[in-house]
């Protein structure tokens, strides 16, 4: 059995159960249990030579609907008898016609409900829309499985009673998918690839140019993944990456999706970020990067978001476009308490030829780093600048 095929069925099957009258939380539980069972018991590969009757391989979706519905009915009966009441659910489901695509779209909105904390929305989205098991999600985020199970059921209680028939906040959906993407490869699940799959599906369900913008941004970042770390696992900064290792197919696809989105004339932050990523992808060598145009996009992005992080990145881009002094002047307007402020300052000082100051700042930035790869990279930068080695 191909687990990814099974996972793709999950949101549609939850939709079917909900249309048959199940509440979202119980439907989601029932489908999760059926998926876990399927992963344990289905054969690795279908054997077309001898398909047996009731073979899930022949109709995986039909099997998953039936298995999930049975589990839902069993759970509802157990709950009813616990409360000493008759089960109100029919053992035989009424047929539930309806557009499955809309169900899936509504699930995205529900799972990324603004009332949920980001970590809860991420977990719920990965389970109900992504079809991952609690165990996989727990492993990807390095928390015990029981903790993740509780996080998911609390999230479901939080949104209980929220109707599944109203479109929600697309902004929170996109934020959740971007959070998943940035988690990268973790445990046995490639969360970046999973986020791309979910963004692709979302883009097929809505015509919103920001969804396309996010998808383009992910594809353009993903295209560089192989070049971002070296054989020893060290971070390789953009300017030093071997551009031959960038995935040109993903870049072409990202650029095409972005161009179509931009043509709609409704610019948003993800499209602007993707435009910056596309300009980097477009440069055959770091020295040929169109920095003035990147600065213009940062101006646009700053206008859209007012984000201090954008302001920081913009200062670095100005340093490339107009020289390190101009970059340091722009940095002077940025909050020094921001993560990576010191690293950006170190970089601009090095470019300005102030090596001793740059080395001290790199060492300070390493002390402030929030991840081990970043800390190690900044420590190396400090050692490199102190010993007068060019990047």
């Amino acid at each position: 059995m191909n687990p990814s095929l099974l996972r793709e069925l999950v949101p549609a099957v939850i939709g079917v159960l909900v249309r048959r009258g199940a509440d979202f939380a119980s439907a989601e539980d029932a489908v999760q249990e059926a998926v876990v069972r399927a992963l344990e018991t289905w054969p690795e590969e279908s054997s077309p030579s001898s398909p047996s009757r009731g073979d899930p391989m022949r109709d995986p979706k039909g099997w998953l609907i039936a298995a999930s519905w049975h589990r839902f009915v069993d759970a509802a009966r157990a709950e009813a008898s616990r409360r000493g009441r008759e089960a109100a659910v029919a053992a035989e489901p009424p047929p539930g016609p309806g557009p499955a695509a809309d169900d899936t779209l509504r699930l995205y909105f529900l799972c990324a409900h603004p009332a949920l904390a980001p970590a809860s929305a991420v977990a719920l989205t990965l389970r109900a829309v992504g079809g991952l098991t609690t165990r996989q999600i727990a492993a990807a985020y390095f928390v015990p499985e029981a903790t993740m199970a509780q996080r998911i059921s609390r999230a479901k209680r939080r949104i209980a009673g929220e109707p599944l028939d109203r479109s929600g906040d697309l902004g929170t959906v996109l934020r959740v998918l971007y959070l998943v993407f940035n988690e990268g490869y973790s445990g046995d699940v490639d969360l970046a690839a999973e986020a791309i799959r979910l963004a692709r599906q979302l883009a097929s369900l809505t015509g919103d140019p920001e969804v396309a913008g996010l998808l383009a941004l992910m594809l353009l970042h993903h295209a560089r993944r192989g070049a971002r770390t070296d054989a020893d696992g060290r971070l390789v900064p953009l300017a030093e990456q071997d551009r031959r290792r960038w995935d040109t197919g993903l870049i072409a696809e990202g650029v095409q999706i972005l161009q179509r989105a931009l043509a709609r004339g409704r610019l948003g932050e993800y499209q602007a970020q993707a435009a910056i990523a596309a300009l980097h992808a477009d440069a055959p060598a770091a020295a040929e990067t169109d920095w003035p145009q990147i600065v213009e996009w940062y101006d646009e992005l700053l206008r859209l978001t007012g984000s201090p992080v954008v302001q920081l990145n913009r200062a670095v881009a100005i340093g490339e476009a107009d020289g390190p002094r101009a970059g340091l002047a722009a940095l002077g307007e940025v909050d020094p308490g921001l993560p990576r402020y010191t690293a950006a300052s170190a970089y601009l000082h090095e470019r300005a030829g102030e090596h001793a100051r740059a080395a001290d700042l790199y060492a300070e930035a390493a002390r402030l780093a929030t991840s081990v790869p970043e800390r190690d990279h900044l420590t190396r930068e400090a050692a490199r600048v102190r010993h007068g080695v060019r990047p």
Partner: protein
Amino acid sequence: MKYLLLKHYRGGPEPVVDTGPIDRWSPDEVDAHMRYMSDFASKLEATGELVDAQALAPEGTFVRYDGEGRPPVTDGPFAETKDLVAGWMAIDVESYERALELAGELSAAPGPGGEPIHEWLELRPFMSGKAETAG
């Protein structure tokens, strides 16, 4: 049996080798040190002895309860805390001797000039969560 190997930024016995801060080493020395640490973790993973490895940021804060309805009181961060944990590696090994051997190996990570840094590491047994059943 499980042990915690604790690495300290500060605290513990007097260092036997003064290596200076790592950002003052040469780039090659830094690389060699980091490669040794990651190879060590990979090796323990391969032998089935690695449980977990985590690094901690150098700054923390002390926090305590301050009574009903009041926000918790914080103290710090302190620049000169005497004991400062940098990170840990949890291992699951056959014997205390094996834990000592591994700690010794980790402490031999290369520093300036490729020489072992002889870093003090603290070895602490985990207390079991289960009461021992009588044989």
